[in-house]
C-alpha cells in the first residue's frame, strides 16, 4: 500500500482527503455514517464572532450537475463552538480545521484569537470568499489589497497553520494567491463557490431568497481544476483543491493539477460515505500505477 500522508506547511495529514467547510456540519451528524477518524481532516462549518441565523429559506436550488446555496454562514458563533461543539469533536483522530468568517477585519481577528487558544485545532481556513453574505465575505476575496489586509491582520494573531480560502469570482486567481502568500498565508485552498443564480420561469421569481447564491458540484470542476493549476504554478505554498470532486478519479485530477490535499464538498450530500470511498480509490490508483506515495502525484501533470 502506498503512503497516503501529506504535509500542508508544518501540518501532517494522515491522508489527503478532507471534507469541505459547510458540507459536513461539525462532523457530529456524520458519525452515524462513517468513522471520522479515517479522514485526513474536517473543515468545519464557517464560524463567525456572533450567532448568525443565515439567510431566509429557500437557500438551495438544484442546477445542471450542481447546486446553488445561499446558507449565509448560519452558525451559533465562536463562543458557542468553543463551549458546546469543540469538546465533542476535539478528540477525533483527524484534524479539525476551523473556517473563519467576518464582516470586518476586526471580526476575523477576534474569531482567530479565540481559535489560536484551542489545542486541537491545528489550522484555520480564512474564508474570504463567501458569496452569500451582504458584508465582508467575498468582498475581501476579490481584491488584492483587501485580501492582503485581512490575511496580514490574522497572521499577526495566529501561530499555527493559516490557510486562506480563495474566491473563484476573480479575473486573476494567481494574483490573489500570490497576494495572500505574500501576506503570510501558509497555504491556499480553492475554489469556493462561483456566484450564480436560478430562476423559476413559471413563477417569474428567483429560486433563492437572496437572488444569487454559490454554485458547487461537478459543474464547476473544470473551472476549479484550471484555477488550482494556475495557482500551483504561481505560488510556493501548498494548494488545497476542491470543486466538484465526486470520486477518486476527480481527486487524482486535482493532485495532478497541483493540490497537496483535496476537500470533498457537495458530494457529501449525495453519498455520506463518499470521502472514505475516495481514499480507497486513491489507494487503488496508486497501486495500479506503481506510485509509492500520493505526494508523487502533486502537480505531476505532463504538459
Amino acid at each position, binding site marked *: 500500500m502506498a503512503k497516503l500522508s501529506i504535509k500542508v506547511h508544518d501540518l501532517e495529514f494522515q491522508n489527503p482527503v478532507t471534507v469541505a467547510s*459547510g*458540507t*459536513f*456540519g461539525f462532523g457530529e*451528524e*456524520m458519525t*452515524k*455514517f462513517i468513522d471520522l477518524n479515517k479522514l485526513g481532516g474536517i473543515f468545519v*462549518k464557517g464560524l463567525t464572532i456572533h*450567532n448568525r*441565523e*443565515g439567510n*431566509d*429559506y*429557500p*437557500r*438551495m*436550488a*438544484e*442546477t*445542471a*450537475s*450542481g*447546486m446553488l*446555496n445561499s*446558507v449565509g454562514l*448560519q452558525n451559533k458563533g465562536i463562543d458557542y463552538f468553543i463551549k458546546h461543539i469543540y469538546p465533542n469533536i476535539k478528540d477525533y483522530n483527524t484534524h479539525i480545521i476551523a473556517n473563519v468568517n467576518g464582516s470586518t477585519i476586526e471580526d476575523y481577528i477576534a474569531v482567530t484569537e479565540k481559535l489560536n487558544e484551542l489545542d486541537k485545532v491545528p489550522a484555520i481556513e480564512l474564508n474570504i470568499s463567501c458569496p452569500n453574505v451582504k458584508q465582508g465575505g467575498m468582498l475581501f476575496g476579490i481584491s488584492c489589497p483587501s485580501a492582503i489586509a485581512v490575511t496580514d491582520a490574522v497572521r499577526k494573531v495566529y501561530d499555527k497553520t493559516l490557510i486562506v480560502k480563495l474566491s473563484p469570482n476573480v479575473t486573476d486567481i494567481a494574483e490573489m494567491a500570490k497576494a495572500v502568500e505574500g501576506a503570510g498565508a501558509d497555504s491556499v485552498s480553492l475554489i469556493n463557490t462561483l456566484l450564480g443564480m436560478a430562476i423559476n420561469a413559471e413563477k417569474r421569481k428567483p429560486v433563492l431568497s437572496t437572488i444569487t447564491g454559490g454554485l458547487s*458540484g461537478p459543474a464547476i470542476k473544470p473551472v476549479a481544476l484550471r484555477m488550482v493549476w494556475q495557482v500551483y504554478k504561481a505560488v510556493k505554498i501548498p494548494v488545497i483543491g476542491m470543486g466538484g470532486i465526486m470520486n477518486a478519479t476527480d481527486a487524482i485530477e486535482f493532485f495532478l493539477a497541483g493540490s497537496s490535499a483535496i476537500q470533498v464538498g*457537495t458530494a*457529501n*450530500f*449525495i*453519498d*455520506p*460515505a463518499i470521502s472514505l470511498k475516495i481514499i480507497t480509490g486513491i489507494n487503488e490508483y496508486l497501486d495500479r500505477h506503481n506510485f509509492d506515495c500520493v505526494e508523487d502525484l502533486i502537480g505531476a501533470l505532463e504538459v
Partner: protein
Amino acid sequence: MQKIVENHEVIETVHLNENSYVLRLKSPVEIPEIHPGNFAEIQVPDTMGVFLRRPFSILDVNYKNREISFYIKAIGSGTQKLGELQPGMQVNLIYPLGNRYTIPQGLKRALIVGGGTGIAPFILLGKELKEKGIETTFLIGGRTSKDILLTDKFSEYGTIEVTTEDGSMGEKGFVTSHSLFNRNDFPFEYVYTCGPDAMMKAVGHLVTQKGVVCEASLENMMACGYGICLCCVTPTVEGNKRVCYEGPVFNVSYLKWQN
C-alpha cells in the same frame, strides 16, 4: 438511531392514478426501526437534471420481509423516473432520517389531517396509534374523488372523513371547512397534519386556536437530508432549525411560518 445507505431492489410499482404510485422495495439488510414521520433520501438513477437525492416519507415497512414502500406523486423529472423503475432494478436509499410524530402519554382521541402525498406518514402513525389503543379519525382532503387514495389502509386504523373541493366525495370544500371543526365539542386532544404548506398552516391555526396541540411535517427543498448542509431551515421561536434533522415534524406553535 441506526441508519442505512443501501441499494434496494424494486419489487413493484403500483400505479394508483395518472401520476401517483406506490414504490415497493426490498432491502438487502435488516431494516432498522422506522417511526411515523421518518423519511428516506432516494437517489434517482441517472436522470438528466436530477443531481441530488429526493426525500420521501416512509409509507410502510415490513421488517420480516425486509420491505419498505413509498407513496409518490410524479411532479418533476425525479419522481417521474422513479415511477418508471422496473422490478429487479436497484435504487439507493438512506434512512431512517428525521424525527417522528410524538404520541403523548394518555392520549385518547387523535385527529389526522392529510392532503396529497402528505398522507404518506399516516399508515405508520395510524398503526402505532391503534396499537396504543388510541381512537383515530383520518380527515383526508383532495380536489376530487380521484385524489382520495389509500383509504382502504387507513380504515384499518380508524374512521375516515373526506373533503373534496368539487364535492365528488365526502363534504365539499377544504379540510378546514369540514364539519368536524365546527362542532361545539372538538373531541380530539392531538392533531397530526401533513400536506401542502397552505393546508398545514390553516389546520395549525384552527387547531391551536382551540387550544389543541398540532404537529405538522414540513415540506422543504433539501440538499442532504441528514443535517449537514443547512439548506432546509425553517424559522422557529428558537431561531432557524433544520427541517431534515430537528424536523420534519414540528409542533406548530414552535414554528414561525412565513409565506
